[in-house]
């Protein structure tokens, strides 16, 4: 994890409480998310608490309707809870405005989606560079960082290909490069292998596993047991609540 940050560009949020053991990267504290009102009211998440620690390789599993997508939106600071607080690096995201929250999202969290969500008119490098925009970086810095990230997923040689020219597995690797180029503390995957064949899925999963580090957490939201069981910490959800949160020995997980 030795990447040269330009001064002040990819600043990290300092932990709020420095004393005593590692502090959580991301913390949900009695978080509820309720959609709609009155008769149509749906409680998607019901007073859920979860602490994601540095070094976690965590999977969130559960059947559809269990609240995992809602959970993902909240973990990624894309959504706000109805009640409860969310802290990223000790800072209360639920008290922030859009600009601050976007800032936290852009610096602390990297997303990988099932549908890749690459921008179709940009080539692979352009897609990765999109994550580096508006940070005061020089064009050349941006370009070099994007190429380095593509190299880490083994796609440096295809940097000038557009998404339509890439296979599904390659597109997802570009998305991975885009997620990791900002060196986020939390890598969030939403069914990252859902649209891939088993060989590509394996490839992507091994990249995810390699990205886990003592400073970083990898969080995968999935209903696929083979993905979920690759993780060392497994959270199971049902009906908007966490029903299990178990840590499995690394050797066993492999």
């Amino acid at each position, binding site marked *: 994890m030795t990447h040269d940050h330009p001064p002040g560009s990819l600043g990290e949020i300092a932990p709020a409480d420095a004393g005593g053991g590692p502090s959580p990267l991301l913390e949900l504290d009695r978080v509820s998310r309720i959609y709609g009102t009155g008769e149509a009211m749906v409680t998607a998440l019901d007073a859920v608490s979860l602490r994601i620690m540095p070094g976690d390789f965590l999977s969130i599993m559960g059947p559809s309707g269990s609240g995992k997508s809602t959970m993902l939106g909240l973990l990624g600071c*894309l959504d706000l809870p109805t009640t409860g607080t969310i802290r990223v690096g000790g800072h209360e995201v639920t008290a922030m405005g859009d600009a601050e929250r*976007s800032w936290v*999202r852009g610096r602390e969290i990297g997303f990988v989606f099932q*549908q890749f969500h690459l921008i179709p008119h*940009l080539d692979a490098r352009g897609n990765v560079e999109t*994550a580096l925009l508006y940070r005061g*970086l020089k064009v050349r810095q941006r370009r070099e960082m994007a190429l380095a990230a593509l190299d880490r997923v083994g796609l440096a040689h295809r940097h000038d290909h557009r998404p339509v020219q890439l296979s599904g597995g390659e597109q997802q690797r570009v998305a991975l490069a885009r997620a990791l180029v*900002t060196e986020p503390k939390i890598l969030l995957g939403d069914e990252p292998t859902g649209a891939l064949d088993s060989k590509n899925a394996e490839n992507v999963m091994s990249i995810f596993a390699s990205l886990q580090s003592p400073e970083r957490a990898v969080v995968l939201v999935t*209903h696929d047991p083979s993905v979920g069981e690759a993780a060392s910490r497994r959270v199971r959800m049902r009906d908007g609540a966490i029903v299990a949160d178990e840590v499995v020995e690394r050797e066993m997980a492999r």
Partner: protein
Amino acid sequence: MKRLRELVGVALTGLFARKVRTALLLLGPTIGVAAIIAAVGLTDSAKGDLKRKVAELGTNLIEASAASAFGSQDPVLPEDAVERARTVTTVDSVSAVLELSNIVVTPYEEASEKFETVPVPVLAADVLLPGVLEVPLVSGRWLNDFDEQIGTRGAVIGIGLAREFEYLPGEVRSIVLNGHDYAVVGVLSAVELEPAFDNAVFISFQAADEDFVAADVMPNKLYVRAQDGTEDETAEALKVAVGLGGPTEVQTELKSEALELASQSDRQLQLIVVSMGLLAIIVGGIGIANVMSISVIQRSSEIGIRRALGHTRGTIALQFIFEAIVVGVLGGILGVGLGVLSIGVGVAIAGWVFTLQPVLVPAGIVLAVVISVLAGMYPAVRAARLEPLETLRLG
């Protein structure tokens, strides 16, 4: 600065990636600006030759003539009218003439019957007249001091009369004024500001005194060049300076006034076509709002991912505003180009003089940008308000 360049870069790649859509966006501002430029330019160009003529001839030639007081016939100015006029400090140059009456001009004696019916104006003029009028001679020379002192029977004729009399340049020829033979010593070029001079005969005051005027010969009209920009004050001052204490009143006239009036573009026509151009650019703006709104829906996934990557609502809105600015600038430039081309084609077909107020070029581009940005605001706000969670369809 970097942020600005990044926004422009994102806008340009976004626009360049969707060429058909961008072409549709450009259509509105391009046609609108082209219509306005062409409308103003063509209506101006239609009068372009007159405008150029006014500029060429100058607007500072004043005619000061004796107005008849108490109905007296043939009013004249004081003998020292030229000296009096020169006392006005804003006067550059002065020349005096006397319009003579009851003189029959014929090319030769035998033709008198034919030419009696068409009177030819005969004027006594001083040596300065061509200089004040700023009109050269086609051939020969103007009346000189010698003519003035001796009263030689020499005459300068206008270019129209020269044609009518079939006078050849350099030909030794005389014309007959009331039976007196006058040698043609020169031909005066066309006098645009005083077209009557084209068919006139000019002789010296001394000759007029000897041959045609019973009383003392005195001028009845002055031609005065005023310093630029002082035309109106000079005209007023001349009335007093020349007329003071004299028996007649002096009236003044700016010789270019009629020509200037004729060179004015048809304001109403211009207003109508410019309104239509404005209408076109407003409709174009609505088109931009439309196409960009659809584009926001089509690009909702792109917007969602940009938000997930940390771009703020404001940045997303700015991205669309910058696309609108680029569309406005490009559309404005294309519109100005197309407008200038239309004027060029129109001018070539109609044989006008190309006229375009330079200020219209930046004005057209600014108008296109303003309309485009106004039109882009609604889609930009819509894009900013999109919820990333809704557009990303999480698994």
